[in-house]
């Protein structure tokens, strides 16, 4: 404890030096090849506490050896490496594992076909039960089989989707990209339980989020706006202008749906409020934007009618349906909108992406995620200016953030209480286990109140202490790491093959014929628990002296659980 305090004290002096060196964001822009030669950084660059801080924030904590590696290369070099994920090689093994998942490998259209065909089977079986079954077959049995098949398909999709995310979060060397992917997923949240989105959220993350995680905000915004997962989740695919062509002579009028338009402004861009100032739009603006976005929908075959979508990718699934579009003039955020079809929506995204309120909203969220729950206003101001100066270049905003004195200030270190996701992923990484089966972690996340892809509302999960520090949460975390540390959580063993019923069901599915054979589980080994000494090595400066003392005085079977269940490891 005493030594920890001393090192933080020393660091605050260093932080002042950094403040002087980075006081102007434009100096960062001018100098694209930063700064490892800068003398003031040389002091701070491999400081223990700073190394720990950076690994806690731009990675999901260290794997064994990471602390040493970053200490040797210096945090600035590590940050620069992580800001360019495309330059970091991903192991063939990780690539092969991802490619083994249909939801990662196949285009969105093919996934939709598979999903719809399951639904048709189940519906047909229901009809069969209603008495239309051909003679000689037991209709109840047909229905049960079909429903079991459908449940198995849902489970298979959910398993693959969560597998793909967590495997990358734990094992990808592109850690900042994974951190940003989680950040943006919550920003542009889609709930996996809404019908078609069961088949699409993995593709949504793959096609619309991860590639743009450090790119330009406008690209990210456009990709999420047009992806069928979002069009479906927030109902824009149905939204139709009152005067639209499809409504002429139609028996049932299709209507305007404001859901996406509202969240687009409130959550995705302008924000409902910024630092006490309202985002600056009204209910009328919501309705007008919804009208501008009428006709933004997806290929009608995604409803399961009109033929297969095999091989159609997510970009091709987006269509503009002129017959649904409201061709009237609109007045939106003070702009007079003359009728211009699909381009009205593109114009709206252009305006929103570089709007000062959006710049501030995104800057505030980034600062809150990466710095502190109540981020310093001066930092938010600086990030906002950087955002506007670069037309929303997320990489540059992040660079300004990560080199800012506020980020590197001692006050920011350990200032964040980990979300369940950060806690679970960082524990898996610190364990050093070769993670073969992430499903026990998926279960843990649900128990901790943060089911992966399970946030029902479009605002996504919060990342503040107020949201997650509660009595139940703390004890559940301790339960989880106690199981992990004692080897009772089988994450380093291949998952068991699906039960016979599920396997039969899976075998009859069109998509699953392309599935690789399930890895055969090895005979159960006697799994030794984690070693507290290795954990302490891996985590280094993240675990303070007080915890080290308690761990040392404790019986060995409990020591590793104490490290991961310590208050030190609950924070980042």
């Amino acid at each position, binding site marked *: 404890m005493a030594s920890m305090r001393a090192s933080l004290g020393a660091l605050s002096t260093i932080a002042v030096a950094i403040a002087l060196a980075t006081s102007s964001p434009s100096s960062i822009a001018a100098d694209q090849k930063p700064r490892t030669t800068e003398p003031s950084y040389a002091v701070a660059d491999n400081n223990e506490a700073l190394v720990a801080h950076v690994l806690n924030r731009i990675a999901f904590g260290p794997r064994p050896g990471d602390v040493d590696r970053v200490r040797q290369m210096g945090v600035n070099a590590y940050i620069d490496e992580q800001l360019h994920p495309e330059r970091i090689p991903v192991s063939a093994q990780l690539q092969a594992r991802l490619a083994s998942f249909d939801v990662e490998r196949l285009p969105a259209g093919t996934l939709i076909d598979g999903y719809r065909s399951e639904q048709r089977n189940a519906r047909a079986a229901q009809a069969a039960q209603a008495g239309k079954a051909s003679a000689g077959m037991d209709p109840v049995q047909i229905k049960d089989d079909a429903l079991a098949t459908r449940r198995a398909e849902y489970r298979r999709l959910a398993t693959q989707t969560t597998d793909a995310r967590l495997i990358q979060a734990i094992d990808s060397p592109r850690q900042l990209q994974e951190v940003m992917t989680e950040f943006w997923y919550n920003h542009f949240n889609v709930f996996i339980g809404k019908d078609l989105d069961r088949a699409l959220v993995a593709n949504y993350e793959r096609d619309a989020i991860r590639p743009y995680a450090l790119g330009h905000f406008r690209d990210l915004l456009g990709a999420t706006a047009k992806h069928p997962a979002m069009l479906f989740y927030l109902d824009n695919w149905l939204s139709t202008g009152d005067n639209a062509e499809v409504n002429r002579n139609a028996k049932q009028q299709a209507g305007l749906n404001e859901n996406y338009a509202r969240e687009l402004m409130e959550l995705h861009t302008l924000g409902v409020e910024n630092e006490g100032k309202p985002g600056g739009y009204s209910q009328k603006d919501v309705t007008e934007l919804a009208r501008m976005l009428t006709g933004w929908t997806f290929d009608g075959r995604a409803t399961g009618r009109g033929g297969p979508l095999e091989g159609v990718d997510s970009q091709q699934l987006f269509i503009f349906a002129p017959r649904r579009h409201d061709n009237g003039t609109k007045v939106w955020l003070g702009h007079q909108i003359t009728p211009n079809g699909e381009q009205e929506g593109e114009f709206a995204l252009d305006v929103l992406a570089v709007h000062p309120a959006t710049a501030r909203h995104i800057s505030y969220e980034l600062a809150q995620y990466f710095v502190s729950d109540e981020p310093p206003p001066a930092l938010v101001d600086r990030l906002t200016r950087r955002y506007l100066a670069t037309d929303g270049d997320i990489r540059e905003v992040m660079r300004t953030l990560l080199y800012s004195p506020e980020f590197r200030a001692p006050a920011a270190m350990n200032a964040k209480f980990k979300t369940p996701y950060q806690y679970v992923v960082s524990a898996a990484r610190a364990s050093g286990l070769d993670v073969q089966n992430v499903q026990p972690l998926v279960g843990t996340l649900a128990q901790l109140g943060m089911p992966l892809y399970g946030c029902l509302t479009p605002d996504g999960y919060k990342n503040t202490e*107020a949201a997650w*520090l509660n*009595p139940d949460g703390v004890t559940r975390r301790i339960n989880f790491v106690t199981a992990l540390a004692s080897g009772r959580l089988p994450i380093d063993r291949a998952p068991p093959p699906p039960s016979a019923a599920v396997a039969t069901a899976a075998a009859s599915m069109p998509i699953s014929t392309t599935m690789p054979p399930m890895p055969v589980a090895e005979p159960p080994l006697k799994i030794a628990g984690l070693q507290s000494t290795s954990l302490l090595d891996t985590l280094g400066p993240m675990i303070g002296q007080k915890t080290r003392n308690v761990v040392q005085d404790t019986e060995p079977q409990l020591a590793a659980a104490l490290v991961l*269940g310590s208050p030190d490891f609950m924070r980042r």
Partner: protein
Amino acid sequence: MERRHFLQMMSMAGAAAGLVPVGRSAWAATTAAGTVPVNNKRMIVVFLRGAVDGLSVVAPYAEPDYAKYRPTIGLAAPGQDGGVLDLDGHFGLHPALAPLMPMWSGGKLAFVHASGSPDPTRSHFDAQDYMESGTPGVKRTSDGWMNRLLGELPGRPSPTRGLAVGSVLPRIYAGPIPVASMAEGQKATQPTVLDQPKIADAFGKLYDGNDATSRTYRESLDARREMLSSLDPSANEKEQMAANNGAPLPNGFPDDAARLARLMRNDPNVQLAFVALGGWDTHAGQGAARGQLANRLSPLGQGLSVLADRLGPVFNDTVVVVMSEFGRTARENGNRGTDHGHGNVMWVMGGPVAGGKVHGRWPGIDEASLNENRDLAITTDFRNVVADVAERHLQLPDAQLDQLFPGRPRQGDAPRVLRA
């Protein structure tokens, strides 16, 4: 020390009384009076996140506009196929809520129609935020009104005085006063490693500081001990079996409601409880007597009925308030659903309730009366309904009421939802 002793006694007495259910409840009632709060009044808040369609919960079936606005999702008049259950000749209850009708007839259930938060926002997140902070229009309020209420209640504090169902602390409970939580589902009583003294001792040394994480850890152990003793299955097994007639309750809310009732009945310290239920955002395919909305209302009605039954004598001292962030559009949309609206209906249930009545001034739903020609107007501020319960049931003094809801509008015609 003293309290631990009390808890031990309580669980022993509970276990013994499990054999004689009648005696056990009598014991709980008398012990409560002697040991803990001078104030044993309870309140349970059920929050329907996502904006339930109040015009389908308590439908103004007698108004011609109602059927006109809702050609496919409107509910039929009483007596027709899928028709509402008549309440007072003007309003009818959604048929999926049939389990609540005995409470309505018995005068234990009331509604406050055209109620809600006066802020015009139609954002779920904002509207929930305002309804949970208790300060509509003010974003800066960092605590929630149920936490403020915990701090102001007369009587002795305890680690389980405020209880939340679920593992995430809801906004409404944010604030300095610790809140206990009961996990959803069977997990509530599953043993945890910290129930083993050796492990708890070791972690106790890590969490003996005065930081927020350490304090939260210790609160969790206190609350856990107290809760486990109250949920001890042996104490209630027989009573449960008899009530269920052997059948397990469906998962979800009815199950949690039964567990919550058991906990509140056995632990007189629990005064406030909060449950949130999602899935009400019916933009498309809402359904009428059957369908999406009905499928959500049905376990809710069943659960509330279970809650009332299982609370037993404690129900006489309990007020349950059901609320949702705003109502939905009066007219159905092109997707046979409804969009975000404004006024809604609050449900108030319990022993002290002035039941059998739809309270509040009904503004009507003709075009001229709608809010922005779109949705139900608000004639009762939700804070005035809660304030009535806080003042007359939880016995909160006047000055504290102002802290509970700073800036609450004084409303001369605010309905009085409790019996005089």
